[in-house]
């Protein structure tokens, strides 16, 4: 029996081939374009998230920075002294006393112990050995002009009991200098005690990329990336720049004069992206400038 089947003609095949090629080509181009857009969007979202996080985290970290002083009228010093929280203030590096919490004494402070009512301890974390404290000295309660803050190092942390029987956090402390012998007697029960660690924020390079890193100087920690990647520093471009401003908004030279810290973060995408409408692959960047007013500067 003779078959009536017929094959495609060459013309039909060619036409079909051209059509299929065109459809596949268009689909492929569409997919690739979509993928680029999608990847670019995800990278940009990550980039925005990165710089936004930088603005928030750094602001939270720096907002509580301040200064304290020991006036002569406190009877603790023969000449006035000011102790700023800003220890190093460079454009790419910042070292500071980072407040980690506050508590209030519930027994009379001694030369070796500050006992804080446990329920009053507020902060990012509990105090720990190696932290430093700064304790409020009331002296004469009839005047605020002789108020002072004195510093000590926490040698150990334990449990204790307040005068009223409620639980307490017992801080064994070591003052430096003659202050330790004089200050506790001038502290009032219920006075505030802040505990802090010395931290460093630094713009640095690791693994071929630039980062904002942080480390605890008090704990002898190593620098670890906090956020990034940031733009590499080239001529005229920096991934991170800190600026220190005084009360008039002018650049401050001395830590005591700083009232505001501004910074510009220039984040970059984790990899090269091809933006819509451009063929070239490139690392995209986004800069964000922000600032924080230091809440605890001298009034």
């Amino acid at each position, binding site marked *: 029996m003779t078959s009536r089947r017929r094959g495609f003609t060459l013309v039909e095949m060619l036409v079909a081939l051209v059509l299929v090629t065109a459809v596949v080509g268009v689909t492929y181009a569409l997919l690739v374009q979509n993928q680029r857009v999608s990847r670019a969007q995800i990278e940009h979202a990550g980039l*925005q998230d990165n710089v936004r996080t930088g603005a928030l985290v750094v602001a939270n970290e720096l907002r*509580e920075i301040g200064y304290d002083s020991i006036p002569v009228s406190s009877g603790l010093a023969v000449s006035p002294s000011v102790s700023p929280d800003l220890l190093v203030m460079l454009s790419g590096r910042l070292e500071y006393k980072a407040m980690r919490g506050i508590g209030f004494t519930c027994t009379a402070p001694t030369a070796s112990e500050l006992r804080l009512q446990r329920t009053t301890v507020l902060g990012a974390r509990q105090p720990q050995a190696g932290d430093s404290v700064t304790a409020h000295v009331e002296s004469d309660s009839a*005047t605020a002009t002789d108020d002072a803050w004195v510093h000590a190092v926490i040698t150990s942390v334990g449990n204790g009991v307040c005068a009223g029987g409620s639980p307490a956090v017992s801080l064994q402390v070591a003052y430096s200098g003659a202050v330790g012998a004089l200050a506790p007697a001038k502290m009032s*029960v219920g006075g*505030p005690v802040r505990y802090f660690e010395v931290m460093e924020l630094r713009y640095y390079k690791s693994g071929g990329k630039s980062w904002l890193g942080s480390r605890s100087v008090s704990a002898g920690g190593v620098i670890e990336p906090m956020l990034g990647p940031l733009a590499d520093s080239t001529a005229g471009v920096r991934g991170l720049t800190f600026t220190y401003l005084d009360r008039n908004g002018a650049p401050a030279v001395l830590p005591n004069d700083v009232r505001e810290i501004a910074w510009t973060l220039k984040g970059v995408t984790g990899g090269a992206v091809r933006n819509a409408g451009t063929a070239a692959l490139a690392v995209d960047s986004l800069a964000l400038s922000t600032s924080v007013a230091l809440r605890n500067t001298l009034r």
Partner: protein
Amino acid sequence: MTDRRTGERGMALALAIFALVVVGALVAAAFVAGHIEQRTGRGTLYAAQAADAAEAGAAQTIADWGALGLNSLAPGATAALPQVTVAGRSAFKPAVTRLNDQLFLVQSLGTRGNAGGGTLARRTVAIVARLASLGGGPEAALTVAAPVDVGSQVVISGTDSLSMRGGALDCAPGHERPALLKVGASSTAFAMFGEVSFDELKAHAGIVLPDTTLNSAPHPTVAATRQTCDGADPSNWGEPRRSAMSVEACKRYFPIVYARGPRLTIAAGGRGQGVLLVEGDLDISGDFDFTGLIVSRGGIRMSGSRTRVTGAIMAAGADGRNVVAGTTTIQYSSCALKEALSGAAFAEPLGQRSWVQVY
């Protein structure tokens, strides 16, 4: 005859569906990323709004200190203040804890809510505040910058008194003071009260009166909803009496009353305690019972019967004459001054390291 075309299998549909699925997945991924980004951005905004509300709450609590009557808190006690809604859906809820005689911790929880009443973000800040020291008050029962005409039935006593109407004060007597002290009009005695100036004091007044004649007598009042002293009532100047009939809730309320006009006339008597500041002249027509400190930047004229001031009066006006007549008693009392000045004291953030980030 069989239709051959029914057996044919094309791939266009499959290709199209495949392409649609892939494109859809990519679009969905981009949409999800964008959506997450948008939500993160909104979360950041809400957190900032909550933080702003918290800061506003702490600042406002300190600014409204006198009106809130927080000085009567016992050490260790906490007063939870009502929630206040600020712009949009942000709100703050402060709480004040007394740490000791001088120090307070003002905590403020700021929230950003949604339309359904849920909370989108919350932040808490705190301020360590201390009471401003108003000192111990004047050195005499009546301190003036201009001469005084004193009536024959007037009693001005510098003997340090512990008694108030209907009861005794709970503190030790001090030294006897002069009944009358004349100082220069520019004396700092009229300008500074402890570490606080007259202008700072009046800026913290809980009750501000215009140039007026008070025809209704000030008297202690209790809030209708709660059995607490009504600090929102401008006619409530606290309870200076210590008898069984006195308004118990207002015994610890010592407002700062400031009369900003050129004259304050207290025509209908009344009673109160705290600090009364008068920008101009003060005229009291009788039946007025006050415990604490009265400072007039002008002169004073006291007449009528049964006016008693326990504490001290100061009149800084250098022109004209002061007149104290009728059956007026001005009784110096360091104890009453101490109670009134410490009770009327307002809080200020510590000079250093007052601000606390609460996590």
